[in-house]
């Protein structure tokens, strides 16, 4: 086993007390490490949400390997095909031809024709100036009864606009064309798991007499396409916002971005906006707030002074969650995040005042290779998120990604309950966090 040569405590550059941290990027970028926490979804998991669809990835062998085995692990190889890019393809003008011919051949060989084909191109195609539209036009002419969706696996461009994850969530709804709206239906857009039915968001929509549609609950392509008719688009994950914006622009529907929050005022504000849009009076949330506070108090009674560590894969607002917990007496000691979203600024300032010694810790910094599995032993820890579990070495953790479907005051209640449960029960961290795409089927 390799040992850190400059001393175990030298985490300079990889962690910083929040009082000294820059916002939104507290760390200098450099070489990156990849922690073995595999729960967050990738573009394959997300794309597979479209029922009766087939995926064709066109990219280099190294890139194909990851997406093909993602599909294999989720027992979905019957929905995954590929076209590899060879060096010569880059220079002999055959890139587009190979993709069109390869995709057509794959479709002809499928035992059942898919309703939609998600065709992914990669960084090299974009660098080489591939004309994706021409390819898609040709395929659409060949297979007029199939919806072709242009998709992108282009991590090199992740800082040049939308990230691949944001792009994928946007393209997830690309087949939706303008059509008359159904005023009785509302879409929840861009999520990779259902939102708890007990959340105020779902309850409010149901109580307003609207039907909630969500791709995570569509079983057929027809069901999925019916989402195009919904009158209102709601997103609450930052990575889904671009999806809602695109639908608003293309379909002329109203889009509400009601960000997942742990700030009671913001939660109430969001629910108020939703009530307005639904044309119903905003309920009095006093009881819901009281319930959330009580749940936090009960969790605190179980967790006591055990240090709490949170990572950014558990929720897009790890700093906001840390602030809420710190405000309710929890001993939050560390937040793992390489950068913060602008939405986190108010919580960052609150937390800086409340817990100035709290550490912000990078997850990809080169030194983090040697910080995993509790190497920096610091007693028992309650972790929220898989990376926090890995780096702290704890067996007590809340196993969620992207907010875990918990939203609103009810989301706070549920999360507090999950934290208390995690404090009382151990998990096999090494096994659990290595399953890819939390919530998906797995062959492992």
């Amino acid at each position: 086993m390799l040992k850190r040569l400059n001393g175990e405590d030298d985490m300079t550059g990889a962690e910083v007390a929040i009082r000294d941290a820059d916002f939104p990027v507290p760390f200098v970028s450099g070489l990156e490490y990849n922690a073995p926490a595999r729960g967050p979804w990738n573009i394959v998991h997300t794309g597979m949400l479209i029922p009766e669809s087939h995926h064709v990835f066109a990219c280099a062998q190294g890139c194909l390997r990851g997406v093909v085995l993602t599909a294999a692990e989720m027992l979905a190889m019957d929905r995954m095909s590929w076209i590899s890019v060879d060096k010569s393809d880059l220079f002999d003008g055959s890139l587009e031809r190979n993709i069109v011919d390869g995709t057509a051949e794959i479709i002809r060989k499928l035992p059942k024709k898919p309703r939609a084909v998600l065709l992914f191109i990669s960084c090299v195609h974009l660098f080489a100036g591939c004309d994706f539209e021409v390819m898609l036009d040709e395929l659409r002419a060949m297979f007029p009864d199939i919806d072709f969706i242009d998709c992108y696996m282009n991590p090199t461009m992740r800082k040049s606009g939308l990230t691949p994850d944001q792009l994928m969530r946007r393209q997830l709804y690309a087949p939706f064309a303008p059509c008359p709206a159904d005023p009785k239906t509302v879409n929840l857009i861009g999520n990779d798991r259902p939102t708890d039915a007990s959340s105020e968001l779902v309850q409010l929509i149901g109580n307003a007499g609207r039907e909630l549609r969500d791709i995570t609950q569509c079983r057929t392509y027809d069901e999925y396409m019916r989402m195009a008719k919904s009158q209102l688009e709601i997103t609450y994950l930052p990575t889904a916002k671009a999806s809602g914006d695109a639908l608003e622009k293309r379909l002329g529907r109203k889009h509400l971005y009601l960000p997942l929050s742990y700030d009671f005022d913001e939660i109430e504000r969001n629910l108020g906006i939703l009530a307005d849009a639904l044309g119903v009076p905003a309920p009095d949330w006093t009881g819901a707030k009281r319930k959330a506070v009580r749940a936090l108090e009960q969790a605190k009674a179980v967790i006591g002074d055990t240090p709490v560590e949170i990572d950014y894969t558990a929720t897009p607002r790890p700093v906001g969650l840390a602030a809420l917990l710190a405000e309710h007496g929890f001993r939050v000691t560390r937040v793992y995040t390489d950068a913060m979203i602008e939405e986190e600024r108010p919580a960052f300032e609150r937390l800086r005042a409340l817990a100035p010694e709290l550490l912000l810790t990078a997850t990809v910094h080169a030194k983090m290779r040697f910080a995993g599995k509790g190497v920096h032993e610091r007693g028992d820890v309650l972790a929220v998120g898989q990376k926090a579990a890995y780096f702290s070495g704890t067996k007590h953790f809340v196993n969620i990604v992207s907010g875990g479907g918990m939203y609103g005051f009810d989301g706070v209640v549920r999360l507090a309950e999950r934290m208390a449960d995690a404090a009382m029960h151990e998990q096999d961290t090494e096994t659990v966090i290595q399953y890819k795409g939390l919530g998906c089927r797995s062959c492992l």
Partner: protein
Amino acid sequence: MKQTARIISIHAADTSGVCSMLYELGGMVVVHDASGCNSTYSTHDEPRWYRQDSMIYISALTETDAILGNDEKLIADIAAAAKDLSPNFIAVCGAPVPLLAGTDFPAIAAEIEARTGIPAFGLHTSGMHSYLAGASEALEAVVSHFCTEALPRTDAPSANIIGATPLDFSVNGAVESVIGWLKKSGFELVSCMAMGSTLDDIRCASAAHVNLVVSSCGIAAAELLRKRFGTPWIAGVPVGEKFSARLASALKTAAASGGCALPCAERDASAPGRKLAIPGEAVFSGSLAAAIEVDLGTPCRVLCPLEAEDRLLAPGDLRIFDEDAASAAFAEASGVIADPMYAPVCPPDVPFFRLPHEAFSGRCYRKESLNLIDHPLPWRF
């Protein structure tokens, strides 16, 4: 159709081969790419990732840096990390975008070495070749840099194992079994390249009397050792009972005569008739084919979907470069021994025997992986 697959998997890429081969040697490996390579490698191609530390990193290349040719960021980031972590060496290699941008990795490595004083080498990966190409070049570079001194041969017969990675051998005790078999056959182990040995062990490689190449990714390094120190090599994996004995005999002959041999390819699959088809890496699959023929009397044919020199294949073996070719070859076979991810293209009337290969199916079937080294074969045909 060439380069197209409806349902089968794809082999690990050259960048993973580099990382896998260098994993245990205390060096820093940097893949110049956006992010995907590192995640793919550490998830699917590297069973040691969770429990065994290493210094495998990604450069986190961005579009802007690629277009503007900002190699200085890569060099500075590597130098900064190397200062913190003091690796034994630094290897830097690239994925498709650096290939398009014409990134000069040997030049970058030279600059890194000048700044850090740490041996550095650049490799020519592109993410468009198999793991064998990357592993081969990486190991050859290590041997070239660190096996420079002609040490006296050990008193007792000895050998290096060359070309071992989890991509071909998993982490199921197979490599330890090869080492045990070597000892049983009268050879001390000098080093195993590159599982279970340190860089210092590998520095002593010239002390061995003979080299055992266990994967085609070891051929280039073995050839370099032959040219540099006159060490003969033989290619084969001790699978089954009689073939293992044949391989031990070949090792002794090579150590005594100085001549190289390829027992894995000393077969003839050109006779007419249906044969057992074995797709996979040439040295292992050839060894398995030979073992089945001598232990069980069943004729075999290797199907090679990966890079391999012609001399590693026997007459009648077949190169298969796509799913259609695999399917057609399976249809002509008496049976197929292959990774389970080939099963969907095997005709239902052809018996299929599962033999997981980590370089093809990653961790999907790791629980089923078989250690066939120096053991009776588990099948009856």
